């Protein structure tokens, strides 16, 4: 078995999700190479070389791979995939964007959002918004897989893999980068945070989301939101937790003013401990919450902040 992991980058740096994907690769077993592709990615390559279990880091550093646009990334992966039995990437927006292109160009299926490895060809993945878990077996010669990072614990960083340059440069005249608007935040990244506090429609407006700030600061938590809160324009959509947003599985998830629709539960029900704060004691969120507090969030949140 020989596995290629596509490294996930965030603003040119190695994203935390990569260490989880390497863990999934270890569960499959075999030689693990990591591909770091982008522009100005030497630091990311060095970080990838430290991940436990990685034997080689391959670096494609070229302007054509900047922002990891799908067309050049797909073409690069097709060039490099020969000789590997598995190609893995995290189920981030980049992995989801790029990997199906590789699969189609190699005429194989892709397995998306894998949460467990049964064997080198058999995997578990959630379907129907996480309301069922499918066990699937792939007989394709090349297995193309995106990994749900919350399904695997990150590997350590005591490795020392070799780093080698990849000279392959592909052409891309079809797509170009125009601009990026990234949400700025000092808080931990939503996908990897140990504690997440999320607000829903019950927050009433965007201004009230500030009630979560103090608590998030005290707990070192990331702030999330339900789709209702995003659609109502309270907060930007990259804060959305759910089937169509981010999937999180923190140690502690605090849902404030969130009813608990199927779509939202799909994104957080694997959290270790769930706390629900809601004034409606019939809200479905209480059926999954370990600790529920029925009451007015506008009274509870300031009290909680002062007592933490």
């Amino acid at each position: 078995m020989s596995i290629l992991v596509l490294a996930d980058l965030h603003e040119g740096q190695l994203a935390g999700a990569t260490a989880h994907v390497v863990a999934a690769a270890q569960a499959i077993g075999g030689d693990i190479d990591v591909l770091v592709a982008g522009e100005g990615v030497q630091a990311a390559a060095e970080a990838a070389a430290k991940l436990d279990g990685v034997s080689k880091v391959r670096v494609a550093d070229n302007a054509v791979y900047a922002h990891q646009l799908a067309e050049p990334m797909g073409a690069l992966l097709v060039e490099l995939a020969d000789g590997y039995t598995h190609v893995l990437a995290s189920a981030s927006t980049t992995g989801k964007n790029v990997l199906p292109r590789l699969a189609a160009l190699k005429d194989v299926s892709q397995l998306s959002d894998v949460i467990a490895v049964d064997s080198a060809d058999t995997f578990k993945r959630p379907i129907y918004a996480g309301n069922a878990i499918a066990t699937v077996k792939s007989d394709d010669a090349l297995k193309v897989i995106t990994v749900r990072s919350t399904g695997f614990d990150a590997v350590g960083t005591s490795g020392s893999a070799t780093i080698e340059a990849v000279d392959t440069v592909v052409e891309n005249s079809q797509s170009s980068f125009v601009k990026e608007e990234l949400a700025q935040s000092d808080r931990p990244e939503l996908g990897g945070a140990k504690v997440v506090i999320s607000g829903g429609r019950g927050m009433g407006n965007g201004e009230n989301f500030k009630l979560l700030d103090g608590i998030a600061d005290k707990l070192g938590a990331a702030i999330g939101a339900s789709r209702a809160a995003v659609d109502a324009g309270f907060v930007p959509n990259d804060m959305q937790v759910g089937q169509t947003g981010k999937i999180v599985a923190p140690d502690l998830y605090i849902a404030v003013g969130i009813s608990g629709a199927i779509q939202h539960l799909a994104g957080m029900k694997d959290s270790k401990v769930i706390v629900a704060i809601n004034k409606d004691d019939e809200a479905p969120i209480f059926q999954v919450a370990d600790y529920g507090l029925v009451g007015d969030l506008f009274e509870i949140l300031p009290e909680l902040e002062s007592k933490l």
Partner: protein
Amino acid sequence: MKVLVAVKRVIDYNVKIRVKADHSDVDLTNVKMAMNPFCEIAVEEAVRLKEKGVATEVIAVSVGPKAAQEQLRTALALGADRAIHIETDERAESLAVAKLLAKVVEEEQPGLVVLGKQAIDTDNNQTGQMLAALTGLPQGTFASEVAVDGDKVNVTREIDGGLQTIALTLPAIVTTDLRLNEPRYAKLPDIMKAKKKPLDVKTPADYGVEVASKVSLLKVESPAERKGGVKVASVDELIDKLKNEAKVL
């Protein structure tokens, strides 16, 4: 230019699904079906492009059992001009659907193909990307804004850290995110008119595409149930429980 829009018939998003007792799959007998929500957004975007004068014709296409014609009629009622149904009772995976759609693209030569970013049943998020790869066209996935400008289209994409805008040469493939638009409802007169719009029925064999895949579904299970928790009476009790019982603070 022509706009091609792909729609899928799936279980209604409000339905609480049941896993079959023999764990072979999810039970879909007598369950309410509907158009996949992301596909509705794709249809709406295509119809808006027509209303703006960018698109000259909107063609809806679906791969699936005979009943998928209901969803194509819905697309026609929402403003699509004609429909193509590729009928198969087999479980068509993303790759097979993408291959079939690639044949339709070859035949119809649309300027833009719009798909949903994922179907809410399989949650794959693959078909649009695979279609782009097979047709050799550029892709704008998870779109929250689509602006056609001459021979280019600017697509604003929802990415993990925020938003990214890319420019693609036309023809191109776009997949829709939820915030792209708010789909309209079909009015009764439009539903009546839709019954008279053309709907071609084809089979995968007509296109020479093999639907079977090398991925087999071994088992479908319900996820581990979370144990019902407790309600606490006060903030103090909550903090105490989190510190001493759950030990997460």
